[in-house]
């Protein structure tokens, strides 16, 4: 990577996340959730480390969203709102997260995105998020080893991305959730529309929630291909796959970006090439 980036690409976002994980590990801080969003506040990359509380996922994402869309860091917002941030929070349907650990990504005198970390004390969250932003000014990459579950999620996501690139398909969002449907990883390839984010995430959730491919859920549980609509996460369209590794159910994968059948095929190929159980 040469020079300070003009925008938050997936590569930039992953560099930021790796820098945050390295910083947290070097300083023996608790494992947490790491989010990077673009200038519109939409996730470019998100990761949650093993043993990080599941609830930290959305807090990290919402912190990054807050910094990018309020164009200010959590600490500045705390001062501006004089500790009354919760009032604004209510207005924003609970999304506005005025807590340290929310940092705008400033580059070339502009705000091009946001970084959010959740999982530690306020001071640690802040320090980790700062380490993330500052990584865009570092020449070198930060390569870190991550724990078992996140490591598997990374391998799956990278496999999906490499299939998309190899076959020149449309860029996708890819998501991995754990056995409880809680987010572990969410990547959005460059130029994938942000609408694909929630679709990918919800397909992964759907597959994990019922332990069958997402599109089978309506037929199996509803007796008809017509969508059932009792849960806003439920997305019974192709592209979500349960993940079974070494005979053990570990979570779900969701892909969105191409036609549902195409997304489904990518998912099947990705799990196949990594030796996970294939659900045709």
């Amino acid at each position, binding site marked *: 990577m040469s*020079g*300070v980036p003009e925008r938050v690409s997936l590569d930039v976002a992953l560099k930021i996340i790796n820098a945050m994980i390295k*910083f947290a590990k*070097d*300083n*023996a801080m608790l494992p947490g959730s790491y989010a990077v969003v673009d200038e519109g506040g939409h996730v470019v990359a998100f990761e949650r480390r093993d043993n990080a509380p599941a609830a930290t996922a959305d807090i990290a994402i919402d912190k990054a969203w807050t910094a990018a869309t309020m164009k200010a*860091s959590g*600490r*500045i917002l705390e001062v501006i709102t004089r500790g009354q941030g919760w009032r604004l929070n209510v207005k924003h349907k609970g999304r506005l997260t005025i807590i340290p650990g929310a*940092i*705008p990504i*400033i*580059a*070339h*005198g502009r705000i091009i995105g946001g970084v959010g970390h959740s999982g530690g004390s306020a001071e640690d969250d802040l*320090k980790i998020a*700062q*380490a993330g*932003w*500052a990584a865009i*000014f*570092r*020449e070198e990459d930060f390569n870190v080893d991550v724990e078992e579950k996140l490591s598997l999620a990374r391998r799956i996501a990278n496999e999906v991305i490499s299939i998309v690139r190899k076959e020149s398909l449309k860029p996708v969002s890819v998501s991995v959730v754990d056995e409880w449907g809680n987010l572990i990883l969410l990547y959005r390839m460059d130029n994938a529309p942000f609408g694909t984010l929630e679709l990918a995430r919800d397909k992964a959730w759907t597959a994990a929630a019922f332990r069958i491919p997402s599109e089978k859920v309506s037929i199996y549980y509803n007796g008809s291909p017509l969508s059932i609509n009792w849960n806003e996460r439920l997305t019974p369209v192709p592209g979500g796959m349960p993940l079974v590794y070494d005979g053990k159910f570990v979570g779900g994968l969701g892909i969105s970006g191409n036609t549902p059948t195409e997304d489904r095929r990518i998912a099947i190929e990705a799990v196949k090439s990594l030796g996970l159980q294939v659900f045709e």
Partner: protein
Amino acid sequence: MEEYDVTIIGSGIAGATVARELSKYKISVLVIEKNSDVGLEMTSTNMTLVCQGGDSLTFRPGTLHAELNVKSIPLWPKLTKELGVPFKRIGGLGLIRDKADYLKFLKMYSRAFKSSLKPDAPYYISEKDFQPLQFLDRRSLRELEPNINPKVIGALYDPNLAVTDPIKLTKALAENARANGVDFLLENEVKHVERKEGYFVINTDKTSVKSKFVVNAAGINVDRIAEMVKARNFTYVPTKGVLTDFDEETSEIFRHQAFYLPRLGEPHVKAVVPIIYGGLRVGIYLDFVMRSDKNLPPQGLQHNLNVIKEIVPDYPFEKHIKRTFFGIMPLTNAETGWHDFIIDIPEHVPNWINIVLGPAGVSASPMLGEKVVELLSMSGLYLEPKPNFDPSAKRGVRE
């Protein structure tokens, strides 16, 4: 392998100050510097200002940045005299364009006095070390600076503000440390550090040394060096500051340090400093960059020319440009602008001290030594004063 009690990585103002302070004690000290001489990085590319008065009193209370700068005020005259380094009080002018500026200065000024001139203040300075600041009206300002922009309606005058020669000071500190027994290893770049039980092994591109304590004063590279032993518990963003020097003739045109307060949408500093050997230094165009960035942005000179013309409108400064150059400094809390120094032992790496200075680091340097000595003795290094320490002796760092 050579063995030392303390090894200092880097010999800018920070490393040299610490070396000299430690040369007062009966311990073995080594300084490792990658360049062929000391003080050639950040210490040679700055405004040369010694924040001696109102300005250091307005730094955020409770920060090291404020504490060390304020406590350094009384130390400067003696230090520069001992070492034979130039130190000149030029006086500073906080320029007032309108009522908003005036009210801001009024607030800064009263906070400054509240925080330091009362005997029970956290960082007390006695009146003898500090001339009071005063507001100048249009007429008295014109008497001091006849060429000033007629739109400026007054100024907050600070007679304490001084300039020095930071490179010469760094050399003098290093040479004094050398004369008092500190070893120097020049042209050695630290590449890799190993943390062992009770000591560190520091590997340069040429040799390896063993040391019980390490003071990491590598300027813009403090983070990289700290990462070698997982001792980076801080973050900063490399910040490029572009400066322009105008020739000696311009010394006749303007004689004080002067600055405008920052305004919304104006992220760059607007200041002029008459440097100690003549000529004006103007800046500062700022940008967050990678530290390897060698590019001199054209907006830099443009900004600096605009600044000096906003201070003195009727003078052909274009014809008096000597050079435009930049320095890269570490800025902590860059996302909020709440910069602070770091002089700290990381929680998980004992016997290791990181020093990150950044803005106003030269000004705060006289207090640095004491701070590091405090940290070292807290870590169990026994420091017995040398009876024969000579505060003025010099010996070349290559000898």
